[in-house]
């Protein structure tokens, strides 16, 4: 073998690589764009009505507001000056460029599931965006939460390594679903209960949580409060359209459907559904008898105020008015969502397939706290529903 031939082979390989370069780069950008959809990154990083991924949106947390950074390739205020390694470290491990800590409003305990190659694909996609000069202040947190180094301890407690995937005991579909749900989809960020410090309660993963005054219902097999009665096809359709099983996505989940679920592949929605349906049902919670007086008052108010849309039998209208009978949101241990929806109203997700985007009007001006509590108690305990009664004290936010 002579050196010249070696050199020629190298050169040939080099040119071949280069010829393949644009196609490969395109694929990488496309892959990154899709991973950004799976991660629902736009929900936080694209300000309402603003340029894509230019940041600046305030993300409320129980501790104060965190402000989403600018992800566009602007050199000064965005990611323009970042290396791929720096980006991957921020995305997956929650470290800033200078090594200091990102607040875990950024779901890095989930995003650690991204491989380095995937992180670099995301970075490649973000680099194709038009740069936007938008300086973003990091957070609005009180002392001592503004001391980012304290997150060292938080990370030690909660950023625990997830069980490795693929799990050889399960098929590829399940493993894909597990990857999305416990990785990019970061479903547990809302659907898992939080500790006082805002970390996931690992033992109650995906058994429901409360975020910004909205109940994120359980995704486990519970027939009342979870997905026990849902088919895999219904779950996939809900992710795609925000409308299935008589239910409609509203609040933060409407955003997830519009920005993520509706844009992901049908195969991935099916994988998510398949994985979620594998989650076990917890032992049934006891359902205490609701007070008869509240039920009677609630029924009268319900017939007057609610039945014209939701029906005297709580069945609703598919795609327009959610079904209350059998609803997980209605029967959730915590009544936050139904109380806020009765008080302040809500709008359903609108997608290409389900463009209606119907809205529930606000009733706060028409109903006092005791009336709202009576209606809530009534709908939580009618038509086969069962859940703890609600008192007027629960209603005042």
């Amino acid at each position, binding site marked *: 073998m002579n050196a010249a031939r070696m050199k020629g082979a190298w050169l040939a390989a080099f040119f071949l690589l280069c010829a393949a370069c644009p196609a490969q780069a395109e694929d990488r950008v496309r892959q990154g764009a899709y991973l950004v959809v799976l991660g629902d990154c736009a929900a936080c990083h694209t300000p309402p009505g603003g340029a894509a991924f230019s940041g600046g949106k305030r993300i409320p947390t129980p501790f104060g507001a965190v402000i989403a950074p600018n992800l566009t390739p602007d050199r000064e205020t965005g990611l323009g000056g970042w290396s791929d390694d720096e980006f991957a470290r921020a995305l997956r491990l929650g470290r800033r460029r200078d090594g200091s800590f990102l607040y875990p409003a950024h779901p890095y305990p989930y995003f650690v599931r991204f491989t380095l190659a995937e992180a670099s694909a995301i970075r490649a996609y973000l680099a194709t965006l038009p740069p936007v000069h938008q300086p973003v202040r990091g957070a609005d947190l009180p002392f001592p939460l503004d001391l980012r180094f304290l997150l060292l301890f938080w990370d030690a407690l909660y950023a625990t390594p997830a069980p490795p995937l693929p799990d050889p005991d399960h098929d590829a579909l399940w493993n894909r679903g597990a990857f999305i749900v416990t990785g990019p989809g970061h479903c547990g960020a809302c659907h898992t209960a939080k500790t006082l410090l805002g970390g996931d309660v690992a033992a109650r993963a995906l058994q429901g949580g409360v975020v910004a005054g909205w109940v994120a219902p359980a995704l486990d097999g519970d027939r009342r409060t979870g997905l026990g009665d849902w088919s895999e096809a219904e779950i996939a359709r809900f992710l795609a359209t925000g409308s299935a099983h008589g239910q409609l996505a509203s609040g933060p989940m409407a955003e997830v459907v519009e920005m993520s679920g509706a844009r992901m592949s049908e195969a991935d929605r099916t994988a998510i559904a398949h994985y979620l349906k594998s989650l076990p049902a917890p032992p049934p919670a006891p359902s205490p008898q609701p007070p008869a007086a509240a039920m009677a008052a609630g029924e009268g108010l319900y017939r007057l105020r609610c039945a014209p*849309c939701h029906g005297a039998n709580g069945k609703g209208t598919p*795609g327009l008015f959610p079904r209350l009978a059998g609803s997980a949101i209605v029967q959730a241990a915590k009544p936050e969502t139904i109380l806020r929806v009765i008080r302040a*109203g809500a709008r359903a997700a609108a997608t290409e397939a389900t463009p*209606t985007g119907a809205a529930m*009007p606000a*009733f706060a001006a028409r109903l006092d706290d005791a009336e709202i509590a009576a209606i809530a108690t009534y709908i939580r305990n009618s038509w086969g529903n069962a859940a703890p009664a609600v008192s007027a004290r629960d209603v005042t936010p």
Partner: protein
Amino acid sequence: MTIRLKPVDAVIIGFGWSGALLAEALSAAGLSVLALERGKFHDTAENFPPSRAPDELRYAVRHDLVVKPAENTLTFRNRVDQTALPVRAWGSFLPASGAGGGGVHWNGQTWRFRPSDFVLKTTIIERYGKNFLAPDLTIEDWGVTYAELEPYYDRFEYLCGISGKAGNLGGKIQPGGNPFEGARSRDYPTPPLTMPYAPALFADAARECGYHPFPQPAANLSQAYTNPLGVTLGACSYCGFCERFGCGNYAKASPQTTVMPILRRRPNFSLRTECLVLAITHDGKGGKARGVTYTDESGQVFFQPAEIVLLCAYTFENIRLLLLSGIGTPYDPGSGRGVVGRNYSYQTTSSVQLGFADKRLNPFIGAGALGMVVDDWNGEHYDHGPLGFIGGAYLAALAINGRPILNHPVPPGTPRWGAGWKRAVAKSYLRTTRLLASGSSLSHRGAYCDLDPTYRDRFGRPLLRLTFDFHPNDLRMSDFVTARLAKIARMMRPDWLAVEKREAPYSIVPYQSTHNVGGAVIGGDPATSVVNPYLQSWDLDNLFIIGASAFPQNPSYNPTGTVAALALRAAEAIIHRYLRAPGPLA
């Protein structure tokens, strides 16, 4: 200082049913479309929540969805030898304002006109001879036939989910429907509403008289429905707050509940509310419209250039904008020449009120288009020769409302106030109903619109002047059909009944109907029409004038179905013909 804006492909003046249908069709075809609406933005949950929508004082008494007379009104007189005075409080009709227009607060009565309505003049002359027509009647054929409009009627009915029962499917008469209607290509998308007691009694009585009752086609839906655009509507709750109200249940078809969710998603469509168009700019006859001048709430004036201008305001404002902008020849009743403002017509209504001692009719169960109708004395399917008039009416028992402020039915002879009146109201409320004759109105030489020489609006522009009285033909027709209505009423065996005839002169004070039509009429001859059969201006080929202003005379039915069918046909002509070869389509 007028701000000149970036040009758009199409600008729409007025965002009611016509504007919304045109916006949907043209934006789907890829055009950049801007709609300018003088009133406020309205959306179901925010503006008409069920917790607030049934507010009779706000909407029915104070006309919250109607344009304020202080902002835009018209002057009125019965005859050319009188001086017109401005309308300072609406009465006889209620022109809408706000996104969705009259489509928000309509009753939802969704009709097709009969085949003979589109060729009325020809039909009458062929059948009864030229001399049968009074010399001052100015009725015309439309230049478009029922068969040509049928696909567009169908499309509108399926867009809305109209509840009804077909009477004529492809020429085969269907039991339970209207046997006198034109042939339909298919049945209504949803079945009829459930009939309350009073319309059921009316239908029984009409059958006893040998007539053919059928359910009123309704845009208040009998069941939930998803339209071809994917938008879902709910089922009517029979609350009785339709006419003058927005629907909080997504159960009444309106621009909001049928096309706005789609338009919201289209980046090439935008809607600017509280923007009043002052004039259309153009090159003059044979040229093009160049765009529109409008003002927003701050008083800033804008010029919006556009390739196509779609005039989709209410009848009166369509006529007025043409006159103010100097488009077309104004009609002169003296010479009979000119076209803009010619052939205004209305609706000739009458009613019979009847009460029962032993029947509870529960009038609070209602919907805008809930009821039974007979068409036996409508249109041209009975011999008018011996009767000496043209036209007819549909006769109906509609359970429209039992709302408490404006609805205090009492028997004749009841005191007008005091304890006796109160006792009578308490006794009569549940036991009284009203039957309606909705009759045709023929255009005639002395019924027209022009610019008022005296009164001006807040921008110094002349108000529109309406000159109108019922033609003797229509009064004869009304007497005839009202007698048939009373016959059905007596067959219902009430304990009392009171006939309310329609008499001249026309009064603009009591509410009758917001079916003001004509003034910019459709036709095949530029000497007698403003627009060609595609609603395209004869003078400016990129100006289309959409709405009931196109009706050369008013058949008996409510206008919305036909307004929508004409609008959809115009949209298709624009997309498939005009865009390919801009120029006159006829």
